[in-house]
């Protein structure tokens, strides 16, 4: 355990400072190239640059390479390759609008290195009840998990700072859980995810100076999913991600098919005169987490963001309880 302290500190510093230092130049670079989109939740015509994915992937790959130099684990290689592939998929989608099925299918292919590098254990661990051996089913789970976590984080990237802030809470909760279940090496490997998200949040929080784009959201989501598989904490990871899972679940349950958000005609949320967010009564619009949060009263963008963070903290606590329950057997 003590021999992991130095790699942990070095990799976390690398992860945080690469994103923290490189993001302002990336913002300038994207501004020069006019790679901006309108921030739909601002009264004025505010243009924000995107994508922030490139700094996130550089921070993640650099910090994981530092860890690989110390630990030489196949799990780290799987994280680097799968996360890089997810970034590439997201970047393609950032530059060129792809169909609704592109990302799930491409992300499923991106999960293959986890299998080929053997960075998984086919025993699925459940709290209270123990483990179940499902070797064939588990391979399917790996293939499904990366598209689910990637698209789940992407789907919650709807307001300033929400995707990165949510990821800070979920990933640090997952790291704490990995320490609780005594999987120290993967716990250390998971820490850079929280630190790159934290550094990016500085620029993504309200008012955003940069958006992560699909490349950023898929990078964060795919890395989270790979850590969950490599660490054997799939159920705990799902619990920590529940608010985002609810968002995807509500969306799919109301739309009843896999489509891109931009293909949806009905608007789930609009604005009041003072530009607060308000749930619409449009029956053709999808039900989303933000729409449910706003079902009572209109709220400012900042207030909705904080409500999502509170839900994330609640899920993080449930995940930590779940991790403790892993050590209890009925």
């Amino acid at each position, binding site marked *: 355990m003590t021999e992991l302290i130095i790699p942990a500190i070095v990799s976390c510093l690398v992860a945080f400072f690469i994103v923290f230092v490189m993001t302002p130049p990336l913002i300038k670079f994207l501004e020069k190239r006019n790679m901006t989109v309108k921030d739909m939740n601002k009264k004025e015509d505010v243009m924000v640059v995107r994508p922030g994915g490139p700094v996130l992937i550089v921070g993640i790959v650099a910090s994981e390479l530092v860890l690989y130099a110390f630990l030489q684990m196949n799990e780290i290689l799987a994280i680097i390759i799968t996360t890089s592939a997810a970034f590439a998929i997201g970047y393609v989608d950032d530059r060129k609008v792809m169909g609704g099925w592109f990302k799930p299918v491409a992300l499923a292919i991106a999960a293959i290195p986890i299998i080929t590098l053997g960075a998984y254990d086919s025993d699925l661990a*459940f709290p209270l009840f123990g483990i179940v051996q499902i070797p064939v089913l588990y391979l399917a789970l790996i293939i499904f998990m990366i598209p689910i976590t990637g698209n789940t984080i992407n789907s919650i990237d709807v307001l300033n700072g929400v995707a990165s802030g949510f990821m800070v809470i979920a990933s640090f909760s997952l790291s704490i859980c990995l320490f609780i279940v005594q999987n120290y090496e993967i716990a250390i490997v998971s820490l850079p995810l929280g630190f790159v998200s934290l550094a990016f949040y500085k620029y993504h929080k309200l008012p955003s100076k940069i958006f992560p784009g699909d490349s950023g959201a898929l990078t964060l989501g795919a890395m989270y999913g790979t850590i969950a598989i490599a660490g054997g904490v799939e159920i705990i990871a799902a619990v920590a991600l529940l608010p985002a899972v*609810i968002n995807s679940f509500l969306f799919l349950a109301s739309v009843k098919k896999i489509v891109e958000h931009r293909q949806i005609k009905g608007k789930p949320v609009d604005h009041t005169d003072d530009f607060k967010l308000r749930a*619409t*009564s449009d029956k053709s619009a999808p039900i989303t987490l933000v729409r449910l949060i706003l*079902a009572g009263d209109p709220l400012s963008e900042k207030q909705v963001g904080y409500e999502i963070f509170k839900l994330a903290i609640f899920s993080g606590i449930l995940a930590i309880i779940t991790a403790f329950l892993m050590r209890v057997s009925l």
Partner: protein
Amino acid sequence: MKSGLYGFLFAMWILLLLGGGIMVTVLGPFTIQQFGEFNWMIASGIKVLIALVLVVIWILILLKLKNWIFRTEIKF
């Protein structure tokens, strides 16, 4: 609405724990002996089928729960 969301999150968590219990107690010990070298393949296929049925049941329960928890708030 906000308390409803926390209730829905908590219900999802309980369903995950219960689903895990069913997976371990039903799928875990499930084996087939009559098909020689194909035993593991057929057993895996049946496990996949049971798991898919469990996922469908899980989603249906969640849909019912969603409608019940948010019945007063959702007017859209």
